[in-house]
């Protein structure tokens, strides 16, 4: 099985703040990590490879330092890695990003399955996975929590898709694209051998020219949405601490919430 995993390097979001002077994001000093949901995508890819053979290629679009994320993926067991990086891609929204990534997936060669995390923790859009499948015109299954069965010969798979109420069992032909949630697996830690391999691994680098993309559909040009402004949310007002023993505080709280619950 040839599997392509699309990942994103994200700042450890919990640390991101706005510079009140310039009204831009302060990213310096913030550690960059592989988007946590993409760790499950990488792990699932590697598990499928271990079961069915084939290879796992990891693709990311981002600035040159996103190479670190790719090397980490190799240390975990990915076979190949591609960095999509070009100034022409700057300012891409989810439309342009999924277009560019879909071109990279096509260039990466024959594939049976594309795996993405359900969403990235910085933008939280959950739009790029389905976007890539729409551009590639392949079936999609989002929020996959379990791969029940893969029939590599008949080229189809059966998965469980998480919903608000439970889950759905869905069958899809291959190739298709899935996005995965945390429940699907427990990602492994890199092995020492993997780390050594990651150091030496060659990372392919593709720009706009290599992907044969339409210049009107990438970067700012290809992005229908624009950010008008960013701002810090109103902080929550200072709360009230209720004092007293268990009985007293319970009485107070019930009184305070009475109108809400009745």
């Amino acid at each position, binding site marked *: 099985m040839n599997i392509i995993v699309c990942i994103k390097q994200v700042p450890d*979001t*919990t640390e991101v*703040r706005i510079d009140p002077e310039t009204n831009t*994001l302060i990213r310096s000093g913030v550690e960059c990590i592989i988007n*946590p*949901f993409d760790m499950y995508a990488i792990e699932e890819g590697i598990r499928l490879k271990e079961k069915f053979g084939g290879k796992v290629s990891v693709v990311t679009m981002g600035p040159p330092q996103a190479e670190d994320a790719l090397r980490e993926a190799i240390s975990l067991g990915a076979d190949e890695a591609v960095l999509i990086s070009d100034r022409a891609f700057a300012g891409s*929204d*989810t*439309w342009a990003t999924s277009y560019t990534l879909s071109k990279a997936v096509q260039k990466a060669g024959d594939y049976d399955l594309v795996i993405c995390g359900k969403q990235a*923790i*910085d*933008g*939280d*859009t959950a*739009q*790029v*996975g*389905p*976007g890539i499948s*729409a*551009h590639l015109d392949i*079936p*999609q*299954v*989002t*929020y996959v929590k379990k791969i029940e069965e893969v029939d590599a010969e008949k080229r189809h798979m*059966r998965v469980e898709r*998480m*919903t*608000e*109420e*439970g889950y*759905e*069992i*869905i069958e899809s*032909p291959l190739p298709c694209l899935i996005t995965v949630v945390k429940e699907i697996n427990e990602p492994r830690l890199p092995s020492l051998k993997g780390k050594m391999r990651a150091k030496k691994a060659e990372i392919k680098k593709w720009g706009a*020219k290599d992907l*044969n*993309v*339409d210049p009107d*559909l990438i970067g700012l040009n290809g992005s229908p*949405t624009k*950010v*008008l402004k*960013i*701002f*810090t*949310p109103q902080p*929550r007002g200072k*709360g*009230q601490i*209720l004092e007293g023993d*268990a009985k007293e*505080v*319970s*009485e107070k*709280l*019930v009184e305070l*919430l009475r109108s809400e*619950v009745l």
Partner: protein
Amino acid sequence: MSIRVINEKCTGCKLCIKACPFAAIDVVKKKAVIAMDKCNLCGACIESCKFDAIVLTKISPSEIDFAKKIEQHKGVWVFCEQKNGVVQSVGYELLGKGRELADTLGVDLCGVLLGENIKAEAQKVIHRGANKVYIVDSPKLKHYQSEPYSKVLIKLIKEHKPEIVLCGATSIGRSLISRVAISIHAGLTADCTGLDIDKKERLLLQTRPAFGGNIMATIICPNHRPQMATVRHKVMKEAEVNNHHRGKIIESSFDDDTYSSRTNLLDVVEEIEETVNLTEADIIVSGGRGLQNPENFQLIEELAKVLGGAVGASRAAVDAGWKTYSHQVGQTGKTVCPKIYIACGISGQIQHLVGMQSSDVIVAINKDQHAPIFNVATYGIVGNLFEIVPELTKRFREVLKK
């Protein structure tokens, strides 16, 4: 699917003419021109071009033009998702907001409803303020499936040209609308918590949290229509029911190909454990590591039951195996915004806070007075949850007479 020549790159070298098996290419004024009636999009010319001047795109120029013909697009649409033939409350929330937007713009508010035997539900959508409801009724649309739903919605949008399309940021909405927006080159903003209109420019101002709620961003879509957004559940107020409100139901049907799906929905499994869906709940009682063992979750469940609420859990409690992942609130779990969120024995790691800090009222019960959960709590109780929670359950039971 389409193909086009990038004129700035084309040198008129004619290599593509030789490569084309269908004689579909000619060079006019030193630029390659592809006759679309002959072309079958085989891509041979793309291989042959030394200047990367020919590209295959999923989007045809007419579709790009469609998105850009701003003045032809009119009306506010709300995709009303249904499950088991019932319109979900998120749809009514969007109709409430959609009515405001439509009134500001002076246009119609329209509902879109796909499913099987849904005419009665369409009437309800009208009673919630829609001027029109576009319905597509077919057994093939009974349950949500990405491909038929997106193909139908794309066709409806192309035919009726709305300027705004809203959809719930649910597992259905987010999967469906991303696919639709790509195909019509529309701008799409995810998981909005605020929507407004810039009257002068007739633009939808879409405000959403990013970076786990640490910053807010306002997004616009100046040059493409429709402007599309998914909206977080429970943030907007439901439209009120007015049984006298009149509107038009417009039914469409499509060919089998439109309803076809490559994926196949085999079964729908409802996990009815604790009955209430976390993202739908008005009240959530959550437990964390402070509960010490899985048996103690019973305290949380009892309080939730008395309040008619749902049970949540911190990541620590889920990772320890005390609760299943479907209960997890926080960054790698669910984002919730109920009216009341009661956190018991949860310290309030930032990963948890980002999933619940937009709740209306937050109650924190924790023995550590320095726990970060108290920074976001409306009401904080420092103390032993094993004493306080049962007492609270008792009190609420008395007040609510359960």
